[in-house]
């Protein structure tokens, strides 16, 4: 009886001691849930990289941050959800930005942080690449309202072997490019791969051409409508170029029904020589399941010049993709440490995991980086003046008009004048 009583007391004492020992460890590992509202699926680049960083943060700092990914399809579904949450004051800590017109409204309501200031407040100002900050300020009317989880350069990619086999030098100008397309077409090779279903891979050619004629401020000036308009000569020439290429069959027979990935497949399966796209596609180019022409066979020529135009080679289309906004109302003692770690380390982790170039400074290069990624990083570093994309300043309606009707422009069922007039009409 006495022994039983003593055993019970000893067991009880052990339990109490164990609970006491556990209590400090449990208090240090308070569970904090951080939500990321996004258009990407959980296995895509941003969520995967953030999850990896969260795991590393928890291990390094003995924390218990749980990252919740909430995915909504880009377009109506995402816009609806974000607008609803904004009206309820329930935007999460991280979320994909709305349109260039709507995101500043969230900034005024205190739901979207000035990223340059945020990086300074977190004590990591050097982690934000100046080119990215500059591009973001241009995008949102003077204030950088998104974290650049991507830093992209756009331009024409080309199949090196196809050009070499047909005696074509890498084009430096749009005139050279048109001549190259004519040579390829004559030999039964489709010159350009493009997604007419998306529309923007074709409309961006118009924007780039106009900026090569007028200079890098073409889009901003056209939006202001003072020195030039979207119906002005530089844009008319760009629209005529696309109409001409379409008429000559340079985009192939399936432009209107090709979606984003099938168009990329046309290029990566060696069925077209040139492909206008941004460097976010590096993830697909380095994927051997998709890339049948080989990574070494993919070249990047950037945006060609126009003979007699005002554009120069150090001006290139640069953007930060669909940025990630930070809700300053949720930056607090629980989330600040995690946020600082993620915003400082994202560049390193994205490059390591997915070969993704971002607007966040890389301080630890991975052991091996594909040669094409190195080439693109150098190309971005050479850019002195980033050129925005065609729809960057337009209203959503004008942008949609352009992307929906560019296939009609390319097929000849809509004239360049009508196409540009439609953009101006819808840009009010």
């Amino acid at each position, binding site marked *: 009886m006495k022994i039983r009583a003593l055993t019970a007391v000893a067991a009880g004492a052990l339990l109490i001691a164990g609970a006491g020992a556990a209590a400090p460890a449990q208090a240090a590992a308070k569970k904090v849930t951080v939500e990321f509202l996004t258009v990407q699926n959980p296995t895509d680049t941003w969520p995967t990289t953030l999850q990896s960083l969260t795991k590393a943060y928890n291990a390094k700092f003995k924390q218990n941050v749980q990252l919740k990914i909430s995915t909504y399809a880009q*377009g*109506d579904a995402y*816009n*609806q959800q974000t*607008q*609803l949450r*904004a*009206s309820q004051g329930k935007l999460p800590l991280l979320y994909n930005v709305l349109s260039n017109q*709507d995101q500043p*409204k*969230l900034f005024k*309501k205190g739901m979207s942080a000035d990223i340059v200031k945020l990086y300074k407040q977190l004590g990591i100002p050097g982690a934000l690449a100046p080119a990215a900050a500059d591009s973001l300020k241009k995008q949102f009317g003077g204030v950088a309202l998104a974290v650049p989880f991507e830093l992209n350069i756009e331009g024409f990619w080309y199949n090196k072997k196809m050009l070499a086999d047909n005696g074509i030098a890498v084009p430096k100008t749009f005139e050279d490019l048109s001549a190259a397309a004519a040579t390829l077409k004559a030999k039964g090779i489709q010159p350009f791969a493009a997604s*007419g*279903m998306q529309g923007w891979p074709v409309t961006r050619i118009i924007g780039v051409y106009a900026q090569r004629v007028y200079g890098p401020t073409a889009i901003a000036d056209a939006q202001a409508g003072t020195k030039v308009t979207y119906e002005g000569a530089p844009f008319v020439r760009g629209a005529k170029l696309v109409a001409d290429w379409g008429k000559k069959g340079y985009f*192939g*027979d*399936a*432009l*209107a*029904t*090709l979606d984003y990935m*099938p168009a990329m*497949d*046309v290029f990566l*399966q060696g069925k077209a020589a040139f492909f206008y796209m941004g460097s976010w596609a590096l993830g697909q180019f380095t994927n051997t399941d998709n890339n049948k022409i080989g990574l070494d066979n993919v070249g990047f020529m950037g945006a060609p010049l126009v003979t007699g135009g005002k554009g120069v080679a150090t001006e290139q289309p640069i953007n930060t993709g669909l940025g990630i906004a930070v809700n300053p109302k949720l930056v607090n003692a629980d989330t600040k440490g995690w946020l600082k770690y993620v915003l400082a380390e994202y560049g390193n982790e994205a490059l390591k995991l997915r070969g993704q170039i971002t607007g966040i400074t890389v301080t630890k290069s991975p052991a091996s980086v594909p040669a094409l990624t190195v080439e693109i990083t150098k190309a971005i570093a050479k850019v002195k003046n980033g050129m925005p994309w065609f729809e960057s300043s337009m*209203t*959503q*309606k004008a942008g*949609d008009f352009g992307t*929906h*009707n560019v*296939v*009609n422009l390319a*097929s000849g069922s*809509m004239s360049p004048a009508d196409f540009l007039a439609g953009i101006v009409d819808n840009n009010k």
Partner: protein
Amino acid sequence: MSKILESRRTGVSFVAPALIVYTIVLLVPTIWSIGYSFYDGNLLDGFTFSGLSNWSTLLHDKEYWQVLRFTLEFALSVTVLQVGFGLGLALLYMFHIRKGGALIRTIVFFPVVLPTVAVAQLFKKMVEVYPQPGLVNALIEKIFGEGSAINFLASPTWALVIMVLMDVWRSMGFYGVLLYAGVVDVPEEIVEAARLDGASTMQLIRRIVLPLLKPVLFTSILFSINGTIKVYDTAIALTRGGPGISTTPLSIEVSQQAFNYGAYGYGTTIATSMAMISLVFSALLLRFNRKDASE
């Protein structure tokens, strides 16, 4: 028992729960939406009263009239074809397919339960041009030679045809079963008497079956037209409203205006116009049915 069932209070207590739910879930949002059509704004900017300006914009919006025209073309084509084919199937089941009728009805009904996106992928593959010609283009190239493939979904006219065919294929089994239920209700004695009098099958159908089937036929047409005016998933899954906006129906336009362009007021104006169009068709059909019944 009959006293209880005949009392007004009993009737109200049976109907009340469903009526309350219907009012909260359907009537209140509908009236609220109609109210929004007199306002401008969105969830970010707030709402300001704008009177009839959205309605004025609607009347002068070329894009709206183009989208309306497409919606009506689609709705009327699909209604005529799916109810027509459904009627044909019902008569086939009644007069020709006796053995294995239930199995055949099930097989024909099967597409009704398939998800729209899956059916759209099927039709997309069938009319594909790239990366390889689909079934239809393979047949075309076999008959007319290589290079004669047609990019159906790149043409506004052909894209409409493919959309109509897709919806008709999906839904005709449903109307076949619905109308068959009506055909089966035709008294056997009348049919037998007509046969004894020497009526042919066509005469039977024209003089006896169709007149007696009118109420069910009318219901099917009403059902069909109201459903097809609201088409959304077929357009999104097959063409995304393209090329351009040539296959964009009113429902997609509502969504675009409200959520992409931040014009909730104008979006609900278009939605209200859809409801009005449905009402007009329903009223016309009801009137026609009443006139017919009184004759």
